[in-house]
């Protein structure tokens, strides 16, 4: 009934399923982060990806008949397309969460081995149980959050540097060989592209703020717990 076709290169539902499984062990802020990521970044990317940037090279019009000039100037101005950069950003940003899932799987494997020797019917509860975020899991989780922050910030900075900001000009001028002289090039849908770039940059910033808040929350909670333990002693 409803169209379940995803973009050809990415299988976002599979990634979502993987992230949701790991998210059971995360804090409330982590769960909010996942929703913001998927609704405001992945969905907006899918809305914009094929349609707005689909004809970016075919509608990149130039005021010249010189063969090859268009290709060369397009390559100079768009070393990597926005869409590809965002897809890479989303993939890299989701990867640290997999670190946590690998650690949880490693913990469960150790417990599973002990359980198999004991009662087998508890295997299902082992799979479903939620581990407390303490000890080594806490460190893994903090590392994954910091790596996530670095990737988000890094990709946003890369986009800003490559395209000189988040705006898209209507007219670009190029005189790369084989263009005969300074040639005018017109980008297709520059305003719409700028709007979506700003939207995605805002969503990225919100995700970064959530990640920082989660790090601060975990550190504060850890300090409070340690204080309680010390007071008890």
């Amino acid at each position, binding site marked *: *009934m*409803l*169209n*379940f*076709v*995803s973009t050809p290169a990415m299988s*976002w*539902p599979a990634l*979502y399923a993987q992230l949701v499984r790991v998210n059971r062990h995360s804090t*409330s802020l982590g769960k*909010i982060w996942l*929703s913001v990521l*998927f*609704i*405001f970044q*992945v*969905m*907006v990317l*899918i*809305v*914009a990806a094929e*349609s*707005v940037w689909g*004809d970016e090279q075919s*509608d990149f*019009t*130039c*005021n*010249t008949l010189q063969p090859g000039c268009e290709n060369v100037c397009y390559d100079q101005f768009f070393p990597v397309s926005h869409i590809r950069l965002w897809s890479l950003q989303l993939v890299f940003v989701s990867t640290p969460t997999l670190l946590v899932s690998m650690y949880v799987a490693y913990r469960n494997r150790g417990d599973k081995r002990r359980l198999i020797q004991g009662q087998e019917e508890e295997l299902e509860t082992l799979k479903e149980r939620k581990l407390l975020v303490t000890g080594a899991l806490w460190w893994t989780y903090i590392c994954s959050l910091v790596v996530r922050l670095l990737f988000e910030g890094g990709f946003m900075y890369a986009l800003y540097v490559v395209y000189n900001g988040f705006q898209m000009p*209507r*007219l670009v001028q190029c005189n790369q060989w084989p263009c005969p002289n300074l040639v*005018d*090039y*017109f*980008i*297709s*849908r*520059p*305003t*719409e592209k700028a*709007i*979506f770039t700003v*939207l995605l940059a805002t969503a990225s910033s919100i995700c970064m703020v959530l990640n920082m808040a989660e790090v601060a929350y975990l550190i504060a909670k850890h300090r409070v717990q340690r204080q309680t333990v010390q007071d008890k002693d």
Partner: protein
Amino acid sequence: MNWGFLENILSGVNKYSTVIGRIWLSVVFVFRILVYVAAAEQVWKDEQKDFICNTEQPGCENVCFDHFFPISQVRLWALQLIMVSTPSLLVALHVAYREHREAKHKRRLYEDKKNIDGGLFCTYTISLICKTGFEVGSLLAFYFLFNGFDVPILLQCSQSPCPNTVDCYIARATEKKIFLYIMGCTSMLCIVLNIVEFMYIMWMRICKCFSKHYVPVEEKPYVRRQSRLSHENIVSSELAANTKVCNTEPRAAGEKPACPVSEGSDQSGAPVSK
């Protein structure tokens, strides 16, 4: 466009909504998302390729298209659908928070987690206000960006590098107009549903507040309440309020009963355990 993800989220929210909320969800799925996916996307598919201008000047078409359509109508429509569906998540988050609290304290804290009362009432109201705000905002954006919901077949453009005023023709203008009207009408229907739902939950809340009227102690129905100290002493709270606790020791002859004999007590005047 993968709307299945949004569909899954909203189906989850269905459990916590009122009757009108469920009607709203059906309208959104059937008349908006389905219409968008099945038809609207195709109508706007070749919008730039088929935007033809009466000029050979390279770049004029690109610039005129960008001038008249800073954001495509179909993309604005999709963003509207995403933004309008998101506030319902607040309600789902609140119910999840209630479940988390019950699990944390390991006892039942709420009579019915999904009942719209207390904090959930505020969350629900805020989500309704946000949804209505997004709908109205999108309609205003459409109106001001595209000068109304009309799609003209001919536009005149004199942006640089067009040499002079140039005629540009939009593809499928009438079909786009029809879909924009459908979009506008369903949007307004959803706004009306949101307002009606808001009034409905306010009315339910007011009724609930006013139905908690004061009832005098004597008129209260008999309510059994277990004593904290002993499970055997089951005493009516009203009976205890109405009757004195009487001495159950046998009376000497001629001695008047310490307290009046009432319906719920035996001859000695002691309250009857039930």
